[in-house]
């Protein structure tokens, strides 16, 4: 994690890239996975039916990992001046 304070208004002239990969990951974990619960429940993980586990906690921890990765990626972009 590197610190990269940006001056106010500095982003205005630059183009903002919509974080499309992270958004897809969000949609998959939050909207698609819970819909597939019955199919996923056939598999067990930590003695839980997988579908239930994902909705109750698995998806949230996966989101956390994606959030950390995406935040680091954005920090890097900002440091290299691309965003």
């Amino acid at each position, binding site marked *: 994690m590197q610190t990269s304070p940006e001056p*106010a208004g500095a982003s205005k002239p630059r183009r903002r890239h919509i*974080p499309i990969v992270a958004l897809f990951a969000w949609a998959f974990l939050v909207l698609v996975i819970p819909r597939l619960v019955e199919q996923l*429940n056939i598999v067990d993980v930590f003695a839980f039916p997988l579908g239930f586990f994902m909705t109750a906690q698995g998806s949230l921890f996966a989101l956390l990992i994606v959030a950390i990765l995406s935040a680091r990626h954005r*920090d890097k972009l900002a440091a290299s001046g691309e965003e």
Partner: protein
Amino acid sequence: MAFQPVFFALGLATAFGLAFLSRRKAEGRVSSAVRGLALAADSISAPFYLGLAGAVFTWGYDGLAFVLGLGGGYFLLQLLVAPLLPLAAANSVSDYFGKRYGRTPRVLASFAIVLSMAALLVAQLIAAGLAGAQLLQVNYAVGVAAAAVALLACIAIRGRGATVWAAGVLFIVMLAAFLGPLVHFSTSNYGVPIPQIAYSNTVWQIQSLEEALLEQDLADPAVLKPLLRPFLSLSPVNFLGLILGLALGLASLPNVLSRHFLAPTVPPNVHAARWSAVFALLFAALLITAAPALAAYAKLSLLSLVADRIALADLPAWMFSFGNLGLVEICGRAATDVAAVTQACSGLPDATTVLRLQDLTLDPDMITLAAPEITGLGKAWLGALAAAALAAALVTADGPLGSIVDALGGSDTSGATRWEPLAMAAAAVAVAAVAAVARPAGMLTTATWALTLAAAGLFPALIAGLWWRRANAAGAAAAILAGLTVAILYIGATRFFAVWFFDAFSSLSSAGPMASETFDDLKQAWTAAAPGAAKDAAWLALDAHAQSIANLWGIKNLATVILAVPAGIVSLIVVTLLTPRQETA
């Protein structure tokens, strides 16, 4: 019982202590981790703290929509909103709309802010009232009044002091009160100190108990909602709508955005803003993923109680203490005491002397507060949970109040005297307290409506403001107006004018022929009833039934965003493209 008021005092002392220390401290630099804790406290607050486990307990798998919705909200916040807001050089959400779009969108956004924040404030006071009533063993209305007075005292003590670190400390208290006993329970019962994993055993135990109850005729297959079976309480569309409402609402919640990304004390640091939202997701996940564990432990204990064929005369005391708050019904009547319950159950066509699952209706709002007694973990945990919830409501209510005062122009210091914001806050608390006492909907439902209103009114225009340079004032105004109108009309009509709504839109409702027939019968009964008590009772029955079937295409009002947000997005895009480009901003 006698030591419970001590916990009430403890809750008050926590809130007052934090307020007093805040007064003496200036809002200096706060690390991302501390801001993350504070952000989690501000967004979860008392209603979700006390409501999440109840949702899973009552709705089984479908209640997990709350877990995913809130978690998904933090993710959107860190991805789309948090990093860009500090660069906007605005002081609050309404100020942001003013600077980005101009006067009209600002006025409309202020309206959305006041509505959603008022709903959140009401939900917080309902939570504080329930916790207070349970701790002091008083009437619910007295609990709400006590909480409202304490809230005003908190604001007076704090003044314009620092709030972020206080909310951060608060979240640690909330986590400790929630997780401590759960960890203890998981370790002693399953040998695993992580509740999120330990309760897998409970899930299977619940499943076999559910089957056993059905075999023994202690549960009605029409009423029992197995924990693991999805979409019994919410259809997939409603499940998705609820998730979206919570996620989009959390990502545009005015009290959170104003305090953590727009306050004058927040440096325009993209990195810090992004990471504080990531930390918020981390800390909030610790709490919200433990809620299903609490729900499962409570459910197992309750099912075991029913499986033991407990006699109505031997029901545990918690049923009556929550029954007196109107949150437990047995055989269709509030469980106020043994005599009332026995009488109600003996009057049923299939009269019973033992408790069956279908006789028992528990309000989701009470589950977390009752869990310590249901699981036999004792009064001390109940005290700690209720005290933490009370403190959460008192400390974080500052956020919605500040947003309301700001949106109404109270924080505009030019020309306004120092007491004006305070008077506005006091008026807002008084109105919210009256609404909380009337309790038009449960705590969790009201909090969900608050997030729905924020999502419908603010989210499309906020995101477009940050990510689409072409978005202009006309488009933003259209988006706020369309989204908010749909949300207000749909929530308002399906909850408060359900009979009229169903009459007008019965052809679009998902109600089957049986439900429609029941509606017609109840309506005839109401028309035929003699004026007075009989007519009132007939209306209550008709209205309650109408609320269960008043919908368009089966969409419940908890999932209103399914209708409101697309309306906002389409209006935004169409109107923006049809009107000239905005030169400034």
